[in-house]
């Protein structure tokens, strides 16, 4: 009988069995973890956008400086890195970020829509505009990225399309009303996406607290505003003739 005692005790008390999956598997398999993936990739893209926006503003210093800046980007890391390797590294990281961000968003969205299959008969406006437009905004931005790469990276659809002359390509591009329209709409979508996305990322990464909440919301709003204004400044300047 003595031998039986501890076994029974353990049986009655033990409620957890089995091994846990690895950290990455734990993250990718749970909604909370997948949101973390979105938050981290979102922050990576956001940091890139800040640099991108600041670089864009060099256009106001004229063709030579802007084209020079574009050339310099390809020489970063030399001689350790080969010509334009740095840029490729950035591109690979960004593609990975976009893919993970998009796949996680797609999977989570499907799950979220399935979790609330029936709508309320009594409809009322919910949450803020930025919050409600995250999914559509994300889709718009994804499409824009494709357009933007074809336009100013591969120059496939650029009206001028001369490699090594980004300044001239940009000016030629933004003289088209549809290019301006696409760009500005996308940048407004970007502003909204960041406005909710940055605060949301902080929440998802557990960086938010009652004390920080207001400051985080302010930062998200300010950054969204600055980025949108900074990006939109370029086509607006071309349209108004400030940059030509």
């Amino acid at each position, binding site marked *: 009988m003595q031998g039986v005692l501890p076994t029974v005790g353990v049986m009655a*008390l033990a*409620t*957890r069995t089995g*091994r*846990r999956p*690895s*950290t990455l598997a*734990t*993250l990718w*398999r*749970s*909604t*909370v*973890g*997948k*949101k*973390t993936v979105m938050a981290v990739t979102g922050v990576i893209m956001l940091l890139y956008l800040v640099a991108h926006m600041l670089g864009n503003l060099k256009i106001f210093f004229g063709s030579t400086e802007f084209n020079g800046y574009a050339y310099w980007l390809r020489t970063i890391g030399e001689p350790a890195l080969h010509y334009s390797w740095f840029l490729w590294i950035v591109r690979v990281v960004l593609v990975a970020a976009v893919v993970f961000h998009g796949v996680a968003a797609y999977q*989570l969205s499907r*799950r*979220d*829509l*399935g*979790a*609330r*299959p*029936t*709508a*309320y*008969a*009594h*409809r*009322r406006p*919910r*949450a803020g505009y930025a*919050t*409600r437009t*995250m999914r559509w905004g994300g889709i718009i931005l994804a499409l824009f990225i494709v357009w933007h790469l074809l336009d100013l990276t591969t120059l496939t659809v650029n009206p001028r399309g001369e490699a090594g002359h980004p300044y001239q390509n940009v000016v030629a591009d933004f003289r088209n009303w549809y290019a301006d329209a696409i760009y500005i709409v996308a940048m407004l979508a970007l502003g909204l996406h960041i406005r*909710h996305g940055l*605060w*949301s990322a*902080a*929440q*998802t*990464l*557990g*960086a*938010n*607290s*009652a004390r920080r*909440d207001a400051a985080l919301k302010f930062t998200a709003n300010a950054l969204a505003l600055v980025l949108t204004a900074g990006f939109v400044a370029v086509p607006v300047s071309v349209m108004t003739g400030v940059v030509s």
Partner: protein
Amino acid sequence: MRLTLRIWRQRGPEQPGTMTAYEVDGISEDMSFLEMLDTLNERLILDGDEPVAFDHDCREGICGACGMVINGQAHGPERTTTCQLHMRHFSDGDTIDIEPWRAAAFPVVKDLVVDRSAFDRIIGSGGYVTAPTGSAPEAHATPVPKPVADTAFEHAECIGCGACVAACPNGSAMLFTSAKVVHLNVLPQGAPERESRVLDMVGTMDAEGFGGCTNTGECAVACPKGIPLQSIATMNREFLRAARRAPR
């Protein structure tokens, strides 16, 4: 006062439901919302109709049994439970839409009654401190700083009504789950199971078919007990910490 009610009627889980209109008269503004429904039901019985089924018990705002979506808002226009909502917040001639909680994880049982047993399973997967009866040390053996005890209490106030899930466009149970995770994880008594608790509870929450959090904040607005939205951030932090540290 006189009101038009449009109420979701559904005979059973598999049957189709529909919004059905009823007129009620002689409603006093001192009545609670449920007393208004009692009045309707008394009449329906005498008319030979089936009364509207709804969950309710304590009618003091603490058991968490009652809950319906009133004019698109979980528990209606005031920040309280349906049983503590009074008719003085409505006006003569109003039309009021009354619907059950809507979420895949809360299937409708009948009319306004839904099955919230998924919440029990979330708690059962880790929302406790393993302290078998008789094994407790003297209560004063571990002092708990007052701010910590207060934080624990504020999260322990959750009544498990499900309004957070009903209000969330994703049918997510993050606020409910985080309330229990924060309550127990901030206390020294909850520390030994800190990692397993959050991992297991989030795992069960996902498995039960609740949606993910998109940080819309609707849950915290609907919560009758004021569980703060930041508790979700705290749970996320606990989850990330546990994903790294949990013993395997």
